[in-house]
C-alpha cells in the first residue's frame, strides 16, 4: 500500500492551553484517536470529543477520514469540543447564507446549481466549502496544529490510500471530504484526490503505534434503506450501496485487527446528507459518549494513579476487584495486539 509516511513527534498527552477545558489534565497512557467518515453521521464526533475534554484527556495523535477530518482538525488545532459544537451549530444554522456564499464563489451558470440539488453532478469545490465551515482558528498547515494529525484521502488513479500529515492542511481536508457526487476532486501535481472513505473509512490502522491505546470512532453505520430507493432513484440506490461497501471495508479491517477501544456510534437512522438533523444526531450519540467515557476511565485507572480523581459517576462499579490488579487490567485493552502477532 502506498501510504506515505506519517510524521510528527511521538508525544504523551501534551499539555496545551485549551479553552473551556478542565484545568486538570489526567496523566496516563497516550491515546491515538481515529475518527471515521460517514457524512452527516459524523456530526456525532463532536459529542465524542466532549469525552476527552470532560475527562481532561488529550489525544497524543489523531487520524481521520472525511467528516472526521473536519472535526479532527478543529480539535487538533486546540479548539474545545464545546467551541466546535457552537461553531458547527452556527454554520448549519446559516445554511441559506452558506448557499449564497457558495454561489458567489462559483462562476458556473446558475442552472448547474439545480444539478447540485439533484445530486447529479460533482461541481462544488471542497476547498470553497471548507473556507466557510472550518473555524478560522484552524491553522493553514499541519505543522501548526497542537496535536499531530493524519488525514486520509483516496488517490483516484492509484485507487489506494493517501495519508497527509504535513504541509497544506486545508487541501488535505478538502481531499478527504471530496465525495464524488457532490464535490470536485482535489487536484495536486496531476494527481486526483477524493474522499478517504472510499478506501479507509475508519483509519484506526494508522493510529497503531501512535499511542498506548488506540480509540476508533465508527460513524459509518448501516445504511438507512428506503424501499423507494430501488425504483427510479438510481442515484440514491448507488449512494446506499457505496455505504454498504464502506461498511464492508470496516468489517474486513476489524477481522484483521481491532483497536483497543472501538465505538460504534449508533447513527444508522440518519442519512449521510442529513446535516440539518444536527441536534438529533448529537442526541443519538449520547450512549456512545457514555460508553467511551466508561472505557477510557477504566483504561486510565488501570494504567496509572491519576493526579486528579476522575468524576465518580464514571467509575465502573461492576468490576471493582479488577481495578486493584493493575497488571491484569493493563492486558485487557491490549489483548487485540497480541492476537495480531
Amino acid at each position: 500500500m502506498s501510504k506515505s509516511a506519517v510524521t510528527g513527534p511521538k508525544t504523551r498527552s501534551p499539555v496545551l492551553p485549551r479553552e473551556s477545558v478542565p484545568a486538570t489534565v489526567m496523566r496516563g497512557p497516550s491515546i491515538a484517536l481515529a475518527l471515521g467518515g460517514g457524512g452527516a453521521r459524523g456530526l456525532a464526533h463532536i459529542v465524542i470529543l466532549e469525552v476527552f475534554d470532560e475527562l481532561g484527556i488529550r489525544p497524543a495523535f489523531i487520524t481521520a477520514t472525511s467528516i472526521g477530518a473536519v472535526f479532527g482538525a478543529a480539535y487538533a488545532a486546540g479548539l474545545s469540543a464545546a467551541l466546535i459544537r457552537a461553531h458547527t451549530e452556527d454554520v448549519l444554522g446559516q445554511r441559506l447564507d452558506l448557499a449564497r456564499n457558495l454561489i458567489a464563489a462559483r462562476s458556473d451558470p446558475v442552472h448547474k446549481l439545480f444539478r447540485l440539488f439533484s445530486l447529479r453532478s460533482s461541481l462544488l469545490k471542497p476547498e470553497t466549502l471548507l473556507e466557510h465551515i472550518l473555524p478560522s482558528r484552524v491553522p493553514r498547515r499541519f505543522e501548526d496544529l497542537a496535536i499531530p494529525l493524519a488525514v486520509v484521502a483516496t488517490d483516484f488513479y492509484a485507487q489506494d490510500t493517501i495519508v497527509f500529515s504535513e504541509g497544506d492542511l486545508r487541501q488535505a481536508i478538502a481531499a478527504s471530504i471530496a465525495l464524488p457526487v457532490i464535490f470536485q476532486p482535489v487536484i495536486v501535481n496531476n494527481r486526483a484526490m477524493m474522499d478517504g472513505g472510499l478506501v479507509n473509512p475508519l483509519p484506526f490502522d494508522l493510529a497503531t503505534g501512535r499511542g498506548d491505546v488506540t480509540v476508533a470512532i465508527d460513524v459509518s453505520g448501516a445504511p438507512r434503506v428506503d424501499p423507494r430507493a430501488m425504483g427510479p432513484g438510481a442515484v440514491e440506490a448507488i449512494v446506499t450501496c457505496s455505504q454498504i461497501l464502506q461498511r464492508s471495508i470496516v468489517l474486513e479491517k476489524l477481522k484483521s485487527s481491532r483497536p483497543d477501544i472501538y465505538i460504534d456510534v449508533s447513527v444508522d437512522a440518519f442519512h449521510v446528507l442529513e446535516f440539518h438533523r444536527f441536534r438529533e444526531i448529537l442526541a443519538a450519540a449520547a450512549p456512545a459518549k457514555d460508553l467511551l467515557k466508561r472505557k477510557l476511565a477504566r483504561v486510565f485507572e488501570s494504567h496509572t494513579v491519576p493526579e486528579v480523581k476522575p468524576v465518580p459517576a464514571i467509575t465502573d462499579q461492576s468490576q471493582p476487584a479488577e481495578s486493584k490488579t493493575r497488571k491484569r487490567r493493563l492486558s485487557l485493552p491490549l489483548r487485540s495486539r497480541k492476537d495480531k502477532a
Partner: protein
Amino acid sequence: MSADHPEPAPARAAASTGTPTVALALGGGSARGLAHIAILEAFDELGIRPTVIAGTSIGAIVGACYAAGLSARDIRDHATELLSSRRAVLYRLAAHLPGNLTSLWSPWHPAVVDGVTLLDMLLPERTRVDFSALAIPFRAVTLDFYRMEQVVLSQGPLVPAVAASASLPSIMRPVEIDGRLLIDGGFVNPTPYDVVLDDADITVAVDVTGAPDTNTPPASLSTNDLWNGALHALFTAVTREKLARRAPEIFIRPQVATYETMDFLKMDEILAAAEPAKQELKRALAERLDQA
C-alpha cells in the same frame, strides 16, 4: 497457505487420492467479467475441474454456465452469438418472449429491468436447473438489501440466484428469494474467494474490478469517470482488506480494468486482453499441481 487451515474441509477429503483440489472464485465487474471465459479455458486446457465455484455478479453468470457443464468454448460461442450485434440480442429477446417483452419493464419502475426474466432469456438452456443438478457445486454471492448482509445461495433454482447476484441497482430490479430482497453481491464481496477458501487445497480468485485509465488527465475526467473510479476504489478496498487478512493461493487480475461497465460488445478485445492472465493461471496451476 494450507498450514493456515490444518483441519481438512469436507471437500478436501478427495485430496487424499493425491491430486490437489481447486476452488474457483469469479468476481464481479460487468463486461470486464467476460475475461472469466478465458480463465475457464485455462481449466479446460489443463483438464482440471474445480471442486467448487463461487461467483459474484457477472462472475456468477459465467460461473453458473460452467458449473452447469458447459465448456469454456460453449460459453464463448453462446456469448458470441448473443453479443454479435445489438440486433441479435433484441431478436433473441423478442423471439423468446412472445408478448412478454413488456414484462422486462415494470410500469412502476420504468428504468429498471427484471433480472430473472432477462437472464432466463439470455442464459443457455442447461442453466435452467436446480443447484443440486449442477456438475460442479456452485455458490452465488448476493446482498440482502434490507438486512445489509451477504447471502450466499447454493440451493434452489439456479437462474433466479444468478439474477440476484447480478442485480445492479438502477439497472435491474432486486430479486426476492425466500422472503429476502437480494441485489448484486459485488457490494459486499466483489471477488468472493473467501466463500470457498476452506473447500479445496488451492483457491483461485479472479478479480475483474475496474480502475481509472491513468492516461486520462485530471482535467478531462468526466463526472461518470469520477463516479466509476470512486465505486471501483471501494470494491478494490474491500478486496484489499480481505487479501491482507488471508489471501488465496492464486490471485489473478486480468488486464481489463479500463474496459467500461457496458463494454459487452468488445468481448473479443476483452478476451484477448485476458490472454496473459490465462497463461499466468495455467503456469501457476501447473506448478502447484506438479509440486503435489
